[in-house]
């Protein structure tokens, strides 16, 4: 019978149980009566004929069950009966049920929580209508398929006008603006969007409206805000029509987007949506030049997302996109020749000109996290399997009776699996609740660590995908924890088990070292140790990251992030402001020195540029240079700094001098540079770099001269946590490399109160210009400790540390359970041993030795597993060896001590056994 027929008959049998039973009984009666008639005809007496017919027929109940099975009639009825019985079993043993549900809920909860995060990061569709009909559109270089570029507005406008492939196409560019909130000016992430941005995504504003077509390219200052920013500003629906001051320009608020809307990205949402036309006037860009990029076909900076026309999808979009590419290249060959259009799923993580960028690491991280949480589920399953094995021993007689009265092994197996699945479902429900709470807590913890300009919009409510996966976890868990014990119980010896006097299998031989129960404990301990070590490595990594040495002392020094460019000031005004700010802060009592810098070590941003020895032409005879010393270009980190920068950091120069006031303030001073020792060694190996000249990479022969003289050499400074120990570094004076946003770094005199100084500095800056946006004012240490890298490490430490502790808890419960069960079933043996002279200490030692032997084997296996995990996780961790001495000693020690306690409690109980009572109970 095929499965569908079986289910159909099963359902029918549920509704018409009585009729089905009658049909089968009549059929069986018919066969027995026929046989009896034959016997009668053969000369037997009527009684003898009937008895012989029944005897030949066998166990009537068993045959009846088989008939019902073969007709599929009993399927539904039996399933319902199994569920009812399983339900009663769980209620009958509330202690067992509670412990089992809690154990498994921890495992399923951890997996659901991790999958929720991965789902939100990688799979959950963005908040949009029919997200499957949306795709990112990318421009790929034909000659180099790995090379992509953004779109210019004119190209976008032409593509949008063609409706063959895309019904509609949106464009966006993410940036930051400074928003005035009361006395404060805060940086806020803003996405500059085409007017159809919201309609293409199919999401209407919660209040107000989106952008009008005429607002797209004009400089009409209108804004739409995201839900979280609206919440921060007071959540007043009457805000529509009110004004916002962004980069010193007054905008009218025209719309508020609904909760959960994150634009085309996932997880984080910008605060503001502004028309593309405001990109040039507001965008903070080096040089502070207000360009008209929307009119320039070679100004590529937009990302596109399209909604496919009916009949077009990702699968069949290649040909129509090819046509579009050719049309664009034919119309504007100079800008578009050599490029083709490709469609791919929308880049979920950040802003990218290519479809795949950034997903490799994320996928690996997601896979590692899910693998670790799967280990936790496995530990919980091993634990539960052990509990069921123990419980199975106590239920052998019950199942022997069932089988004696006609239950088939398959039926017994099914009943036990139903019990297991019901248990898993209860645990799954508890696990999902746990996961919702855990992911919410994680989001709350993670929020402050991430960008302060964007809003983390992680929604912990599980969607259908998360619920389906959780159900999958339940089914998987059932197979893992219930199948083995159920299989064992279904294969019992009916005769032997029926003779058992007690419910407990007390006379069976004690389990050997490699008995199933013991192997499960060894597995649990091994997996727990691996997770505990991983947690320990993350925690240690955070500790090291926080204490990381960038090459200078954080001390109580602080900095202010000044965004004068965002206030709408031009270069001369910005330069003037920064000069004034530097002077005023330096004059504060308690300030030893201060200096400007474009970026700072361990900050959230750093910059790099191609450099080479001055005078190098782009190519020698059309061939690239062989070495940097010959003129080949190389990448160096690049910073723009003021006077006293190294003094302010507390880093002495190796040779030469710092930049002078003239070099920092004048745009016409001779071009000079300070280089790090490693850059000097690369460019001029074995020579003194002082007085030498270098330049930015010359791509063309007619490129302007950028050569500069080296006037100082400094030691290496570590720029970021996870990167190389040191980078070649080029420092330029502010005078020859203008930047609209700068950091004002302040060195505090020994003994001075940095908190008070920071307050005074804030006041001084407000006095200097009340409209000057100060995006941050904090100590270097606070900045480092709250950086994205440390926040990610801290989050990893929280997740894996929790995994480790839960795993430890489960392992302890597992060890305790097995030892306690072992002691309970060995009471007689312990009694005999004590009657023969064993002291309490002998018994204590016996039980402890067995438990600790299992633990030791688990620890050995776990250490090998931990090394493998250490190798995998090493790439994410800061300054941690694959075998970290701390994690690899503390985790086993903690687990061993916990195991000792878990063994000691049952062992102590065993040592208190009264031999007379134990032997009398026999």
């Amino acid at each position, binding site marked *: 019978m095929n499965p569908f027929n079986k289910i159909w008959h099963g359902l029918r049998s549920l509704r018409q149980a009585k009729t089905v039973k009658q049909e089968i009984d009549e059929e069986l009666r018919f066969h027995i009566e026929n046989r009896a008639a034959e016997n009668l005809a053969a000369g037997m007496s009527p009684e003898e004929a009937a008895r012989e017919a029944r005897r030949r027929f066998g166990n009537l109940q068993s045959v009846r069950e088989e008939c019902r099975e073969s007709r599929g009639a009993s399927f539904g009825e039996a399933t319902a009966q199994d569920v009812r019985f399983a339900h009663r079993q769980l209620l009958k043993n509330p202690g067992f049920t509670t412990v089992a549900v809690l154990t498994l809920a921890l495992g399923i909860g951890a997996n659901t929580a991790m999958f929720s995060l991965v789902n939100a990061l990688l799979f959950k569709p963005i908040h949009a209508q029919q997200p499957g009909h949306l795709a990112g559109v990318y421009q790929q270089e034909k000659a180099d398929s790995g090379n992509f570029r953004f779109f210019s507005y004119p190209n976008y406008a032409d593509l949008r006008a063609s409706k063959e492939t895309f019904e509609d196409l949106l464009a966006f560019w993410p940036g930051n603006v400074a928003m005035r909130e009361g006395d404060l000016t805060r940086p806020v992430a803003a996405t500059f969007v085409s007017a159809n941005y919201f309609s293409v995504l199919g999401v209407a504003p919660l209040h107000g409206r989106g952008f009008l077509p005429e607002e797209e390219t004009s400089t009409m200052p209108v804004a739409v805000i995201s839900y979280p920013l609206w919440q921060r500003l007071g959540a007043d629906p009457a805000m529509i029509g009110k004004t916002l001051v962004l980069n010193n320009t007054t905008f009218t608020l025209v719309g508020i987007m609904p909760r959960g809307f994150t634009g085309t990205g996932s997880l984080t949402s910008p605060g503001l949506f502004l028309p593309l036309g405001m990109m040039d006037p507001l965008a903070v860009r080096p040089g502070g030049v207000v360009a008209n990029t929307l009119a320039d076909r070679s100004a590529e900076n937009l990302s596109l997302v399209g909604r496919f026309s009916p009949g077009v999808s990702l699968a069949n979009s290649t040909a129509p996109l090819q046509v579009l590419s050719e049309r664009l290249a034919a119309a504007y060959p100079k800008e578009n020749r050599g490029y083709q259009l490709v469609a791919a799923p929308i880049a979920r993580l950040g802003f990218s000109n290519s479809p795949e960028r950034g997903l490799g690491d994320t996928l690996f991280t997601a896979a590692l996290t899910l693998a670790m949480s799967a280990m936790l589920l496995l530990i919980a399953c091993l634990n539960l399997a052990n509990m069921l094995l123990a419980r199975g021993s106590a239920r052998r007689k019950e199942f022997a009776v069932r089988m004696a009265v006609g239950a088939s092994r398959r039926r017994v197996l099914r009943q036990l699996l139903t019990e297991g699945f019901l248990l898993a479902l209860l645990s799954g429900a508890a696990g999902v609740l746990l996961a919702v709470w855990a992911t919410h807590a994680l989001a709350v913890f993670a929020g402050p660590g991430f960008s302060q300009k964007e809003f983390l919009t992680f929604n912990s409510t599980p969607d259908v995908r998360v619920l389906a996966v959780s159900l999958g976890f339940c089914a998987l868990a059932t197979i893992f924890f219930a199948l083995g014990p159920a299989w064992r119980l279904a294969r019992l010896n009916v005769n032997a088990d029926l003779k058992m006097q007690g419910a407990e299998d007390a006379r069976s*031989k004690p389990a050997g070292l490699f008995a199933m129960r013991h192997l499960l404990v060894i597995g649990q301990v091994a997996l727990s140790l691996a997770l505990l070590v991983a947690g320990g490595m993350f925690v240690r990594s955070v500790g090291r990251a926080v204490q990381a040495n960038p090459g200078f002392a954080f001390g109580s020094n602080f900095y202010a992030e000044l965004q004068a460019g965002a206030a709408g000031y031009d270069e001369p005004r910005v330069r003037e402001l920064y000069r004034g700010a530097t002077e005023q802060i330096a004059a504060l009592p308690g300030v030893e020195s201060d200096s400007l810098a474009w970026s700072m070590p361990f900050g959230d941003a750093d910059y790099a540029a191609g450099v080479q020895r001055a005078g190098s032409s782009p190519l020698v005879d059309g061939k690239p240079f062989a070495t940097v010393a010959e003129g080949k270009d190389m990448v160096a980190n690049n910073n723009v700094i003021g006077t006293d920068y190294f003094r302010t950091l507390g880093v002495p120069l190796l040779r030469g001098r710092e930049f002078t006031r003239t070099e920092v303030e004048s745009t016409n001073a001779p071009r000079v540079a300070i280089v790090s020792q490693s850059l000097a060694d690369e460019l001029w190996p074995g020579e003194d770099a002082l007085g030498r000249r270098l330049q930015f990479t010359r791509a063309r022969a007619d490129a302007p001269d950028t050569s500069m003289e080296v006037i100082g050499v400094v030691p290496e400074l570590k720029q970021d946590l996870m990167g190389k120990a040191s980078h070649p570094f080029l420092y330029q004076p502010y005078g020859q490399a203008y930047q609209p946003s700068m950091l004002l770094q302040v060195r505090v005199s020994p003994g001075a109160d940095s908190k008070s100084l920071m307050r005074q500095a804030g006041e001084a800056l407000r006095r200097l210009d009340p409209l000057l946006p100060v995006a941050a004012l904090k100590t270097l240490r606070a900045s480092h400790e709250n950086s994205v890298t440390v926040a990610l490490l801290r989050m990893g430490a929280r997740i894996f540390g929790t995994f480790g502790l839960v795993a430890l808890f489960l392992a302890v419960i597992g060890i305790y359970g097995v030892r306690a069960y072992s002691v309970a079933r060995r009471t007689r043996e312990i009694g*005999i041993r004590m009657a*023969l*002279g064993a002291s309490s200490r002998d018994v204590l030692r016996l039980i402890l030795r067995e438990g600790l032997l299992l633990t030791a084997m688990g620890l050995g296996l776990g250490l090998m597993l931990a090394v493998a995990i250490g190798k995998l996780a090493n790439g994410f961790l800061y300054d941690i060896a694959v075998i970290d001495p701390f994690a690899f000693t503390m985790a086993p020690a903690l687990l061993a001590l916990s195991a000792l306690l878990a063994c000691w409690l049952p062992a102590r109980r065993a040592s208190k056994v009264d031999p*007379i009572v134990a032997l009398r109970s026999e």
Partner: protein
Amino acid sequence: MKPMMSTPPRTDIAQTNTEPMIQLRDLEKCYKTKAGFTYVLRQINLDINAGEFITIMGPSGAGKSTLLSILGMYDHTWEGEFLFLDHPVRRLGAKERALLNKHYVGFVFQQFHLLDDLTVAENLDIPLSYRDIRKSEREALVADVLDRFNIVGKKDLYPSQLSGGQQQLVAVARAIIAKPKLLLADEPTGNLHTDQGREIMELFKKLNQEGTTIIQVTHSETNATYGQRIVRLKDGWMEK
């Protein structure tokens, strides 16, 4: 009366003591129940000399096994006086009682109580393993007992592979392997058929002749004839 000791002397009592090995004075044992106190043993006064073979008899519930447990120092919740080789058992701590038991007492159970997962030789080794005896010495003792009880061929068998009589033979061998001065036997032939029971009783007789003091509990009048005197109990009272 001897003072409290940390290690019981391992001397030959028959040679050094003129006092009885066991002296019970007004020994009583009762359980507290909802209805009040239920007495199991009442005013037991009994002297047992070293080298005696005593039989305790009486109907079920008379207190025979309880008395045996007290004599074996497994039970310490009783009233009265109990001197064992002049040691005041009532005043001894649990450890000291266990030490006395370990050095002087062997016990044979009606249900044999062999450990199912250990071979005959390993079962015999158990009492020795709890007595700080070196392994080589233990092996020699086990070999000696196997030989003496004529069960060398069974040494690697598990209890489940032996008959009831053979199991009880091993249990007796285990009880005497540590050379106890006192052998207590609770219905030692209760689970054996007549021939096997006779063999065990002959063995007891031989052990007694070799100097072991034996106290057995039995319902069998025939078995009682192996002993030198019979103590009868009824409802916890010792019959005069």
